[in-house]
C-alpha cells in the first residue's frame, strides 16, 4: 500500500462521509478525547460536517464512510465519494454490512413506508439497504456497531504510514479467553454469538453477564450452522434463532443464509 504522505510538506486530507446511519461511528472520532488534537495535527480534516462548517475541496487522501446506501441519490453520491478518494475505508456495520436498516431487505419496503409515513409518495428510497462495497470498491472495512475507537485510530494511523491495519480477525471467544471471562454458554446456558462473531469489542457482553449479540458481524469462515444446533439444544426456537442472526449485520452473507434457514 502506498503511504498517504505523497508530498512530505502536505498533510494528508481526511474526509468523513455520512450515509444512512446513527452518527455513532463518526462520533467515535470525536470521542477520542485524548487523541483528537494529535489526529488533527497529523491530518488535515478536510470534510467532516458533524464537526465543521468549513469544507476543503477534494481529492481526499483518506475517506472514512459511515452509513449504508439506501436512496438513489446516495447511490450516486457514494460513486462521487469514491471518485474523489485515494483510499476509502468503511466504518461500522451500516457501511460494511448494510446495518439494522437492511432488515427491510427481507420484506417489501413499500409496506415499511406505509407503516411510518402518512404520504408515501413523498418518500424516495431504494428497495434494499446495501453496504458500500456493493456499490463501489473499498480499500478496507472496519466492522462493529459501533466501531471500536482504538481500532479506528489504528486504521487511520496505518493508512497514514502506508501499512495494513492490525485488526485481529478471530472470534469474540478468543477475547473472552484473553480477558479471563467464563464462557456464558458453557457455564450458564446463555445463547451467545461469540463463536461466529468478529473480535473488536473485547468481548464486552459476556463480561456483563449476557451473550454476545453479534454487533461486530461475522468473523472469517464462521460455522453458523453448528452454533444454531447448539442454540436449538439450549431450547431456542427457530424464530428466535432467525432473529439472533438478523440484527445489525443481518445482510452479511453468513448471517443472511443462517437466518433464512431458520425462517418460517
Amino acid at each position, binding site marked *: 500500500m502506498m503511504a498517504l504522505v505523497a508530498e512530505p510538506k502536505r498533510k494528508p486530507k481526511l474526509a468523513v462521509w455520512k450515509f*444512512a446511519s446513527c452518527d455513532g461511528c463518526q462520533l467515535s472520532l470525536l470521542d477520542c478525547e485524548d487523541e483528537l488534537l494529535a489526529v488533527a495535527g497529523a491530518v488535515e480534516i478536510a470534510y467532516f460536517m458533524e*464537526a465543521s462548517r468549513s469544507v476543503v475541496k477534494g481529492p481526499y487522501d483518506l475517506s472514512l464512510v459511515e452509513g449504508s446506501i439506501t436512496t438513489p441519490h446516495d447511490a450516486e453520491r457514494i460513486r462521487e465519494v469514491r471518485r474523489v478518494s485515494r483510499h476509502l475505508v468503511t466504518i461500522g456495520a451500516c457501511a460494511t454490512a448494510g446495518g*439494522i436498516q437492511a432488515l427491510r431487505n427481507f420484506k417489501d419496503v413499500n409496506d415499511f413506508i406505509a407503516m411510518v409515513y402518512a404520504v408515501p409518495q413523498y418518500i424516495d428510497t431504494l428497495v434494499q439497504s446495501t453496504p458500500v462495497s456493493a456499490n463501489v470498491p473499498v480499500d478496507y472495512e472496519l466492522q462493529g*456497531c459501533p466501531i471500536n475507537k482504538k481500532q479506528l485510530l489504528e486504521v487511520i494511523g496505518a493508512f497514514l504510514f502506508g501499512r495494513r491495519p492490525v485488526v485481529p480477525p478471530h472470534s469474540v471467544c478468543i477475547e473472552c479467553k484473553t480477558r479471563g471471562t467464563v464462557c456464558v454458554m458453557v457455564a450458564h446456558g446463555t445463547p451467545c454469538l461469540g463463536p461466529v462473531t468478529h473480535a473488536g469489542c473485547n468481548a464486552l457482553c459476556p463480561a456483563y453477564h*449476557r451473550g454476545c449479540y453479534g454487533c461486530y458481524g461475522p468473523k472469517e469462515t464462521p460455522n453458523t450452522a453448528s452454533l444454531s444446533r447448539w442454540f436449538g439444544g439450549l431450547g431456542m426456537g427457530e424464530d428466535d434463532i432467525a*432473529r439472533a442472526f438478523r*440484527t445489525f449485520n443481518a445482510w452479511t452473507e453468513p448471517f443472511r443464509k443462517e437466518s433464512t434457514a431458520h425462517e418460517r
Partner: protein
Amino acid sequence: MSDSMTIKVDYLARVEGEGGLVVRVRDGRVREVSLNIFEPLRFFEALLRGRRFIEAPDITARICGICPIAYQMSSAQAMEQACGVTVDGQLRAFRRLIYCGEWIESHALHVYLLHAPDFLGYENALQMAKDHGDAFQRGLQLKKVGNEIVAVLGGREIHPVNVRVGGFYRVPAKQELAPLAEKLEWARDAALETVRWVATFPFPDFEQDYEFVALRHPDEYPVNEGRLVSNKGLDIAVGDYDDQFAEEHVRRSNALHSARKGGGAYLVGPLARYSLNFNRLTPAAQEAARSAGLGPVCSNPFKGIIVRSVEILYACEEALRIIEAYEPPERPFVDVRPRAGMGYGCTEAPRGALYHRYRIDEEGVIRDARIVPPTSQNQRTVEEDLRRFVPLHLDLPREELTRRCEQAVRNYDPCISCATHFLKVTVEKE
C-alpha cells in the same frame, strides 16, 4: 443589505445528521422558512414489528449514536409498563446515573464542539482551540467524564450493552464506582467554570413566548419519569401523549413534524426542562444559573447553551449523590414476563422528551411501535424562531446572516439522525 433574498444552507454543519435550511425574504418579509431533512430513512418503527420485546432497547439504541441511553430507557420503561412491572430502588437510581452520564457527554459535545464556535466566530472547535485551548480541553475532558460513566455502567460509550428490560445485566460493586466519583468532583468544578464561560458570550435579545413541554416529577429534576406538563396548561400522564400531540408528514422532510392538537408549535429540551423545573435543581445549579444572569424561566433560545451548562453541573452533582448512596441491589434486574398490552415510555433525552409506544402480544412479540424523538417535536419551533429572527437582522451581510441562522438552528442541538423518521439550512437571495 437588500430586503429581498434567500438564505440557503445545503448541508448544515455541526449537527447530528443530514439537513439543510431555506429562508426566503421578499420586500423585507420572510415568505418561507423550511428545515429540510434529507437524512435517509431507516424505518425503525416498521422493523421493530415481529421482534421480541426484550430486543427493543438494543435495536432502538441504533437510532442515535449520541443519545442511545435515551432510547434504551424510553423503550425499556415502555415494555415494563406493558408488562405491569416497576423498576425501583437502586436499579432506578442506577438508571438515573447512566442517564446523567449521557447528559454530560451529549451536552459537553454540543456546548464546546458544536455550538461555542458560533458565539466566538469560528468554523469549528479545532480552530477555536487555537485561541481558547484551556476551554477546549475542559470541554473534551468533561465529555470524557460523561462517556466514562456510560462506559463503566453500560460497557461502552456508544450503544452500551448493559441496559435491559427490567434493569441491567450486571451491576457493579460499590468500589468500581469510586474512580468515577473522583472524576466527577473535577467535572463539577469544570461544569461551574463552563457556566461562567458561556455566560460571557454575546446573546441577541430574542425572548419568545413558547409553550414549554417537559416531564415534571414531584421531587426530582426530571430524567426518567414524571408527568408531561407545560407552562400553558398541559398536565398529563405519559400514556395520554397521543391524545394531545400529533405528527404530520410534510413534503420537504423525511422527519415528521409534531404539534399540540388544537394548538401549535411547542418546545422540548433543556430550555423547557429548566423553565418548568427550576426549583428541582440543586442549590448550586440554581445559584450558578442566577450568577449567569438567568431567572427561573429562560425564553431566549440562544441562551440554551447556558442552560445546557447548568444541566451539566446538575448532572455531575446528581451523579455524585447517587454514587455516594449506592448499595448494590441483590439482583441486577427484575423479571419481566410478557403479557398482551400497550406500553408507554417517555424520558428526558439530552434534547428533550423522547416518547415510545409499543403494543406487544402475549408472547412478547412487538406488533406495533411508535417513536417520537425530541428533534421532530422541535422542528416547527425552530422554523418559527427563524421566521421571527431573520426580519430583525436583514441589515446584516448575507454570509453573516446565514451564520446567524445556522446558529439559531443549532440552539436546539438538532439530532437529525433521530428525527428521520429530520434537517436541511438554505437562506436564498432573490
